[in-house]
């Protein structure tokens, strides 16, 4: 039990993102409201972004952008600075996620105009008629 707790605490950042991901996944699959599904999708994407970002962290690592001259005084020392690449990549991932959200919202608008509701059950009911 103690070992298990130690495992959780040592890698708490990963466990956090797993929990976040599951929340998002549940919302996407389980919720019947289309906006909630969309929010679930955002949570899901955020979880993955967090995974990448936290992967770049080093204990005691410094950021090679703020205080650039201070940090890089002795040249590039990989053990002393955090890995910037995941952060840069996640900028792109965030852009992607925003665009998907944008498209999804636009589609939701069209659905709302067509059916007057965003509850999946009600839409299906209207379609059934």
């Amino acid at each position, binding site marked *: 039990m103690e070992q298990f707790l130690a495992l959780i605490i040592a890698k708490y950042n990963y466990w956090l993102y797993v929990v976040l991901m599951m929340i998002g996944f549940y919302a996407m699959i389980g919720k019947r409201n289309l906006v909630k599904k969309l929010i679930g999708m955002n949570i899901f*994407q955020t979880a*993955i972004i967090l*995974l*990448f970002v936290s992967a770049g962290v080093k204990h005691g690592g410094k950021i090679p952008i703020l205080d650039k001259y201070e940090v890089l005084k002795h040249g590039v020392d990989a053990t002393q600075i955090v890995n910037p690449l*995941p952060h840069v990549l996640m900028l792109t991932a965030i852009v992607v996620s925003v665009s998907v959200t944008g498209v999804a919202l636009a589609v939701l608008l069209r*659905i709302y105009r067509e059916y007057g509701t965003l509850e999946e059950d009600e839409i299906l009911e209207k379609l059934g008629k």
Partner: protein
Amino acid sequence: MSTSNLHMYVLAVPLLTAFFVNLLGRISRRWVAPLVLGALTFASLASLCVLGKVLRHGSFSYTVGNWQPPYGIELLLDPLSALMLVLISVVALFASISAIQSVRQELPGQEHLFFTLYLILIAGLLGLVLTADAFNLYVLLEITSITTYGLIAMGKGRAPLASFNYIIMGSIGACFYLLGVGYLYLMTGSLNMADIAGILPTVDGTAAVATALAFILVGLWIKMAFFPLHGWLPNAYSLAPTGAGLLAAPLMTKVSIYLMVRVMFWLFSSDFLFLQNPLVSTLVVWAAAIAIVSASCLALAQRDLKRMLTYIIVAEVGYMVGGIWLANSAGMTGAILHIVNDALMTLCLFLAVAAIVYKLGSGEFDKLQGIYRRMPVTMAAFTVGAFSMIGIPPTAGFFSKWYLIQGGIEAGHWQYVIALLFSSLVNAVLFFRIIEIGYFFKDGEQHGHEKKEEAPLLMQAPLLISAVALIVVGLGSGPLVESIIKLALPAGF
């Protein structure tokens, strides 16, 4: 322009034209058609040159902006990607000729919007097959997906709903893929495919690598609509504007299959996939067999031409996934040949459907009575496409099925062989049902009353060319396999 980076133009021209289509299309809709066709004709010819170059001088890689790999973005041009490049650009060209007519009818006044998305989608697909960077692949995957979401949502009625479902499913798929890449990055510290492949054998922690593989595969399986993850596809493709279906149906799933091949053999190795985990490959082949059989049965239940074809696409995905996981040379050859053949025959069938929908308004079975007399040319081409789907020689579909079955026999996966034969039989039932409806008349109706009313020539021309191409590719499948596909197989096959 120099020929050394011709492939960059293949990518850039459709992408840039997309913006011009939007800008000039606002001024006058007359600009749309020549711009689209011009860009795609250029892309087709240029990609043929690229293929020729790769075949003559061998594979090469290209670094965008001169950043050296593994840091810069690398494009990989080998026979497989060059072949896909040709396939995508040529199929897109023929699809667009017909799509222009169909969009003009279905979405009047919105041609420039439609074709902006359409061209970006094509550029995204072209980029997907070229990239040699795992993260870049994710971005391009999302570019193609987002444009497809938009294209589908332009359809009438329930289309936005189908599009939204696809957004949710597609995002899950993309996120799974990204998650898998994240794991790999944690393990190897690299995103360049060749670099990762080089580092992977040296890292310990097979469990993490296997998890990464699992996430990536499930992500791609959602994107390619591998049964039972196919739920989004039938609605999305059948409710989309016909022009969007014309492009998405032949290409999207096939490109995803290509990505699976890339990831499996250029990121991981066949040793890791097949030798260390033989049970997994057996399970996947079983899943493929079940996918083929179930999707075929679902296709039987449809009463609309477009919907029926979408289920056939799902079944065909099972063919290729199974073929790749058979882990032998014949299966792999068959799967890659089938990527080409299936793209062509789906194109042929969807072009025929586009022509039918153009004249009849929809492809419901009830409306098809006596259609052989009304649209003989369209239906002749449709019949060729149907024969190819059933797998009747000398159409192309027969030969890829030949390799796939041969692979199944050699690997001893009889369930897969039986599934393929079963699906051929079901396809025969499906298509002959339509042929029967179209060939016979309503009860009590007299012969020879319908007059001919074909779709415009610009819809018939690509249809006929694609039908002829099916026979030509079928008869030429020997040279095609020998001179291109054999070179395109992953190492060790």
